[in-house]
């Protein structure tokens, strides 16, 4: 499926130097919240999410002219956001020089640092459960559960087969349910 008509127009405007900045601003405005929440659910902390957002939109600015339009624009944006989030988490891991399990513990600490954190509330328990998942499985769960993304689109973002994504989502849900019921 190729880009929507609106996105086509924005891309066309972007490719014209005179209207590039306006087109870019329009794209930022259109997709910022969706991308922000996708990133935030992965990195947890707002300041970290903001940093990742900046990196994402720098890459968008640099790469948009060569965007091939063989997929939806948002698919491409989501792919950049997912990759940047994973890169950010990997850098954190290296800086902390700890194992992955400790990083997820670090994310749980960041959750606890949120001013509205309440471990007795189900929605916070859900977030704690999500942070226990491996990175990629966390992305699969978030895209399906929160963004209700079709597997076909997810497959293009994560470059994984639909079958593998369905299985991953199934396991993620089961793990989360087990965490919520038993902790």
């Amino acid at each position, binding site marked *: 499926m190729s880009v929507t008509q609106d996105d086509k127009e924005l891309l066309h405007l972007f490719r014209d130097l005179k209207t590039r900045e306006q087109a870019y601003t329009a794209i930022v405005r259109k997709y910022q919240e969706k991308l922000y929440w996708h990133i935030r659910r992965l990195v947890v902390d707002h300041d970290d999410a903001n940093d990742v957002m900046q990196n994402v939109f*720098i890459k968008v600015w*640099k790469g948009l002219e060569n965007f091939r339009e063989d997929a939806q624009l948002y698919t491409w944006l989501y792919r950049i956001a997912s990759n940047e989030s994973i890169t950010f988490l990997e850098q954190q891991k290296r800086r902390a020089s700890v194992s992955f399990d400790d990083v997820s513990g670090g994310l749980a600490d960041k959750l606890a640092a949120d001013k509205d954190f309440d471990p007795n509330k189900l929605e916070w328990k859900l977030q704690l459960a999500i942070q226990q998942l491996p990175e990629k499985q966390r992305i699969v769960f978030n895209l399906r*559960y929160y963004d209700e993304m079709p597997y076909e689109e997810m497959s293009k973002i994560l470059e994984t087969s639909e079958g593998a994504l369905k299985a991953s989502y199934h396991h993620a849900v089961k793990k989360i349910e087990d965490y919520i019921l038993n902790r």
Partner: protein
Amino acid sequence: MPSSKHILNELSAISQTVANITDRPVFTVPENYFAQFPEKLMSKIREDAQYETTLISPLLGGLERKTPFSVPEGYFSALEDQLKKTVLPAVTPETAPVIPMFRKRQVWKLSVAAMVAGIIGISAWFYFQQAAAPFSPAQVNVKAELPKVSEDEIADFLLSVPEMPQAETPQVAGLNNLNVEDMLKDVQDGELQDFVKEMPDLQPEKLN
């Protein structure tokens, strides 16, 4: 055409023309459409993320899809301006003019010059190779040169060369193994006698 008499009567009262139109269907329906419709519909429903989650875990499926994180007030409206200040200047610096190290035309000229030099060099090498070897055995014109060689020189040459053993090639081995009678069975006696007369060395008195 309406099946109800009441409706038909009403229609006839308004327009007999319309009432007379038979209920011949004009739209076609793909074959098996209705038989397949429920299953296709269920496939679509199962694709729904929320329903899928509910099937796997009714607990999770029943939760409100809400992320509890807080966002600073005005963040999204400020993000646009923030990006303009930080992203745009960061990725569009004033670019200096780019001067290529190798202009295409110069590269082309250099390539042609290198080719010509190579051809001249190789030709010169071959020429000097031939000059060092004034002749090769293959180039000698035997017919022209042979009369210049005396009979004594030829005899001396033949004596100096050791008798070359007959190479046992498959062809020679094959010949040796041939039965002469078989070879000559088709040759007439008269032809054989003529052949012998022509070869003085093969006269019977000389062979014996």
